[in-house]
């Protein structure tokens, strides 16, 4: 067993939005990093976190996620890369001893990069018992990856897309929206949320998202022996019925011309994004608040405008600001105030609060917050 070729060094929580038992918890495992290379894994793991954060709908439901990094030091660096692969590709011939024994050229295909998925799963569960999904980051610059019980991706800049696509399968039950070797589907309605055989405007699976002016089917395939490479007949973002899915060229339809479940590099279509949201939404924090308080107080000279800022507020919190004067002012308004918002990073917000004294006397003011919810 290849676990003898390395050791689990430690586990670090990279994204912390609360208890793992309530959040959707993702674990990133290191593969093919030697002890001295673990700092590189930290950078690679953070790059994957950034990729996921910038991938809608994860962005808007970020507060539903926790993410861990598991440092694993392998004896060797990289992954096996057989010199000769059945698909004709030439590898480097490198063979290395790594914890998950990952290799390119799985099933004779050089771009297929995977290892011991059961060991990866048990390692993730041992480190983070409440893990929902696991991605193994393989320390190899060559493009490669695969799906399955866990997702595998090399550190190639384009390969992270493989893991995002595969999470669409494993975590959210999304089907593939392309055809490759199968011609015409003749089975029953699939249970996957992003595929249908139903071309009726009234009853098709995502009928509520289709405009009355959109033709149905929106794009059928004139040659069911091959994938349809024609451009879309409708503007980008149009929701309708486009032929192709579950590896069939015809007979199954997906919702948009472009989607990450059809080809990498695309955003998720509205139907797939909605499916992901439906799962992640159940993992959002729920507050028993509101929690209220005064963040700062101050005194403004007549007609003075002053700006305060307050930083490191969790971006997951819904915060309502109110500024009030504690000096009686009558008749007429005493102050005017504005709140500006700076998203300082993935996790925190800085609020800039500008207050103007509208009167000809000094006024004491206080800035009050109410945390309405944590999501």
């Amino acid at each position: 067993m290849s676990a003898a070729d390395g050791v689990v060094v430690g586990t670090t929580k990279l994204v912390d939005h609360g208890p793992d038992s309530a959040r959707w918890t993702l674990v990133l495992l290191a593969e093919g990093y030697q002890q001295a290379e673990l700092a590189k894994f930290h950078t690679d793991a953070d790059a994957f976190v950034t990729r996921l954060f910038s991938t809608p709908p994860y962005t808007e439901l970020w507060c539903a996620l926790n993410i861990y990094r598991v440092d694993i030091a392998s004896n060797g660096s990289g992954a096996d890369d057989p010199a000769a692969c059945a698909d004709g590709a030439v590898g480097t011939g490198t063979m290395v001893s790594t914890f998950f024994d990952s290799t390119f050229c799985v099933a004779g295909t050089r771009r297929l990069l995977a290892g011991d998925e059961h060991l990866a799963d048990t390692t993730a569960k041992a480190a983070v018992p409440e893990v929902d999904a696991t991605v193994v980051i393989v320390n190899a610059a060559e493009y490669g990856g695969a799906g399955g019980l866990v997702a595998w991706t090399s550190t190639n800049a384009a390969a992270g897309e493989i893991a995002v696509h595969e999470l669409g399968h494993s975590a959210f039950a999304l089907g593939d929206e392309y055809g490759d070797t199968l011609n015409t589907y003749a089975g029953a309605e699939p249970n996957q949320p992003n595929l249908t055989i139903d071309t009726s405007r009234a009853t098709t699976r995502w009928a509520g998202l289709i405009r009355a002016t959109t033709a149905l089917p929106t794009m059928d395939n004139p040659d069911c022996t091959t994938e349809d490479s024609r451009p879309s007949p409708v503007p980008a973002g149009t929701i309708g019925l486009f032929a192709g899915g579950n590896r069939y060229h015809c007979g199954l339809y997906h919702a948009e011309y472009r989607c990450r479940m059809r080809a990498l590099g695309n955003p998720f279509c509205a139907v797939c994004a909605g499916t992901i949201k439906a799962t992640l939404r159940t993992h959002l924090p729920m507050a028993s608040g509101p929690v209220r308080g005064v963040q700062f107080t101050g005194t403004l000279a007549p007609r003075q405008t002053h700006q305060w800022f307050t930083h490191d507020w969790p971006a997951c919190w819904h915060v309502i600001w109110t500024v009030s004067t504690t000096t009686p002012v009558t008749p007429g308004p005493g102050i005017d105030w504005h709140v500006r918002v700076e998203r300082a990073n993935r996790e925190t917000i800085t609020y800039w609060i500008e207050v103007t004294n509208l009167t000809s006397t000094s006024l004491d003011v206080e800035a009050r917050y109410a945390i309405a919810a944590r999501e």
Partner: protein
Amino acid sequence: MVKQRPREKPIPNRSWRLTFKYEGDAVTLVEQESVAMLAPPDDAALLERGQAGFHVELQDADGKPLYRRVLHAPIRDSYEVFSPEPGAAISHVPMDRPHGFFKVIVPDVAGGHSVVVVGPPVVVGPPSGLERAAAVSGPIIRVQLRGKPPRKAEQR
């Protein structure tokens, strides 16, 4: 920054996680764990209209479904192959024979008795299972839950 933190509402979040191994047409249970985590949302609505494909059911002692969740190809007979070119076609290469692992998570609810993985039959050898997606689904493996720990109030 504010010191107070809102408290989260307590909700029950105990689930069963089952890991299966498949080798050829044999599917076996590898591990059953009681875990403090939320199961994915119930897919009853999807399964009322969609019959083809895999799903997992939590059933009571009478076989009545208490929870159902769609699964995407837990038993694979091919590998998905990608290209570094954005927008490039995705393809598949066949496995010599289906082999691998998959896991399911179902909620630990009162009356939960068995977990059933439902799907099209596993096809071994030529012709490959490519047409499996169109085949009629049925039970692939049924596992009776055992060793349930005492239920207690869970806080998240």
